[in-house]
């Protein structure tokens, strides 16, 4: 990235931060100068307190976004307890029920080419789908922070209570990657390549292409969400979640060379590159007890 690009992005970021932080003082009041009987009163009275001392049991559908080679469609659930209306503690889970190859995977499978220089990375293009990395599951203990509570009107007909929340925690991500190809295997295949040419090297590497290994990646997770309460005990939720961690999405030799991100002739941990994995979730949340309390002045 050029210096100009970095400068432009930095200036934009600073401007955005200033724009958000600067007017906050003004937004705090939004031109309301409260006097008289309501001076000092809470902004809302008789508000439904949807979360305080209630359990949230949620079922959801999640889908990974901007995947390079494989997209995971997941279903899962969340159990969360809210000691206050603005704080929740719980566990979020999702398990892949379908893994869809991206267009790039299809292109590599149908048009990729294998030569001496990349026979380790792509022994057989037709079998590329066997070597790509996939997300199988996510289990994330997390904390939810619910600072914003309000309501929205849709087409001036449907009015629902809503809240905006942020969450963060630790995610244990179950993934499948191409298994390591060590020095011993590489040496053997190189010898066959030298002796019999590319076709024998392809045959030598073929078993490594379909060999996979499962592991659990530990990653930070965070995101934001919107809940729309259609009943006292039920809400529709939408979430965006980030799961940044390093993994080998393509199953190819990408790094490990002393010069940096260049092939080192092996498939191993050094080929796990950092990815800003993220996903979107749609869910249906149920709250227990089913009847929320109402706020009154002084108990919010």
């Amino acid at each position, binding site marked *: 990235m050029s210096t100009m690009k970095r400068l432009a992005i930095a200036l934009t970021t600073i401007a955005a931060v200033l724009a958000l932080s600067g007017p906050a003082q003004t937004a705090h009041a939004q031109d309301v100068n409260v*006097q008289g009987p309501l001076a000092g009163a809470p*902004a809302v009275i008789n508000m439904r307190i949807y979360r305080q001392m209630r359990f949230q049991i949620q079922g959801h559908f999640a889908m990974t976004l901007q995947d390079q080679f494989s997209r995971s469609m997941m279903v899962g659930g969340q159990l969360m307890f809210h000691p206050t209306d603005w704080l929740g503690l719980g566990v979020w889970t999702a398990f892949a029920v379908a893994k869809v190859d991206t267009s790039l995977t299809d292109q590599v499978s149908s048009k990729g080419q294998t030569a001496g220089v990349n026979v380790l990375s*792509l022994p057989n293009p037709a079998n590329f789908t066997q070597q790509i990395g996939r997300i199988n599951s996510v289990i994330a203990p997390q904390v939810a922070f619910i600072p914003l*509570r309000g309501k929205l009107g849709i087409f001036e007909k449907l009015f629902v209570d*809503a809240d905006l929340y942020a969450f963060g925690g630790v995610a244990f991500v179950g993934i499948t990657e191409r298994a390591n190809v060590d020095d011993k295997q590489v040496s053997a295949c190189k010898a066959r390549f030298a002796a019999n040419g590319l076709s024998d090297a392809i045959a030598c590497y073929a078993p490594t292409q379909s060999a996979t290994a499962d592991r659990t990646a530990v990653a930070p997770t965070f995101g934001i969400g919107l809940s729309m309460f259609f009943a006292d005990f039920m809400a529709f939720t939408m979430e965006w979640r980030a799961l940044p961690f390093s993994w080998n999405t393509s199953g190819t030799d990408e790094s490990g060379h002393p010069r940096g991100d260049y092939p080192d002739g092996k498939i191993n941990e050094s080929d796990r590159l950092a990815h800003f994995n993220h996903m979107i979730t749609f869910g249906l949340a149920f709250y227990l007890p089913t009847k929320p309390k109402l706020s009154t002045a002084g108990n919010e």
Partner: protein
Amino acid sequence: MNLGFRHDVQTLKWMGPLAFGLLAVISLGLLPHAVRAQDMSFDINETESSAPKGKAKGKAAPAKEAKETKEEPAEAEGGGEASAEAGGGDVLSELSAGKGKKENETDEGGLPREKEVAEKIYAVQRMYVLRSGRFELAPSMAFTVNDQYVSHNALAAGLNYWVSNVLAVGVNFLWYQGIESESALNFAVRRSARLAVPVTQYQLGGNLNFTYVPIYGKFEMFNDSIFQWDTYLVGGVGVLRTRPVAVIDPAVRTFDFDWRVAFNVGVGIRVFLTKWLTVFGELRDYIYMEKLESLTVSLAQRGEPTTWIDANSTVTNNVMMHVGFTMFFPFTFEYRYPK
């Protein structure tokens, strides 16, 4: 809750201080119930209109408020002398005028006897911001969110004119050149799979857009601050200036920018910080027919530019996230009430 509901409560000219005091107590007593009926009403007006304590005592409305609301009567409920006059100019008073005469009867001793007032209360909440007739200037930064191979980031600016409070017509302009960046994925795929992915470069774009606001709402933060926001739909048509980046035969091929017709649709959210300043985020899909570099190299005609471009056009969706702020002009506006 709007304190305008007090205009619905009939008072009589001949009622004395005792009745007046009773009404004041009733009015205050109704206040929390009305709020409850709205489930969660924390509109700006309930705090603004509750401010003049003197109104409950039947004094004249503050001059500032009287000026702001213009057609509203100075005091329809106060003191027992304003109901007849108020009926001619105030909707709420007119609504209550028909029943007002039947609300008071005399008891056996000929003394006035108050009956329960059962007026229907029309609580009309005032919009936080009026947009109709105002201009909106919207500078932003835009990021590509759906392209793995190249990020068509841009500096953007939009100008809208709001023909109503929910509908605007406007233009926007985007500058891409020098801000775009190609991802490492391209290089990795070329190295590992011997497969080149044709990519393009953008220079600029401009569009004529229509904006519609179907969803609006408000949020409170820790029961203290209130934020007004809305969600809008945007769509339009314009032009985009792009060119292929030579990756198949970069030693020979070079390309010039050319114009494409682009359509766009999107959805955004706007949060009001003041009555003239907002921050917004917008997801917009710019759809156009792209001309990509030809994947084949004709050895016989390698230097012939007509063979460098793929014969077929490709439908391209460049989904961008705009993040920025907007400013409304003029900064102020006036509410108008029905007579």
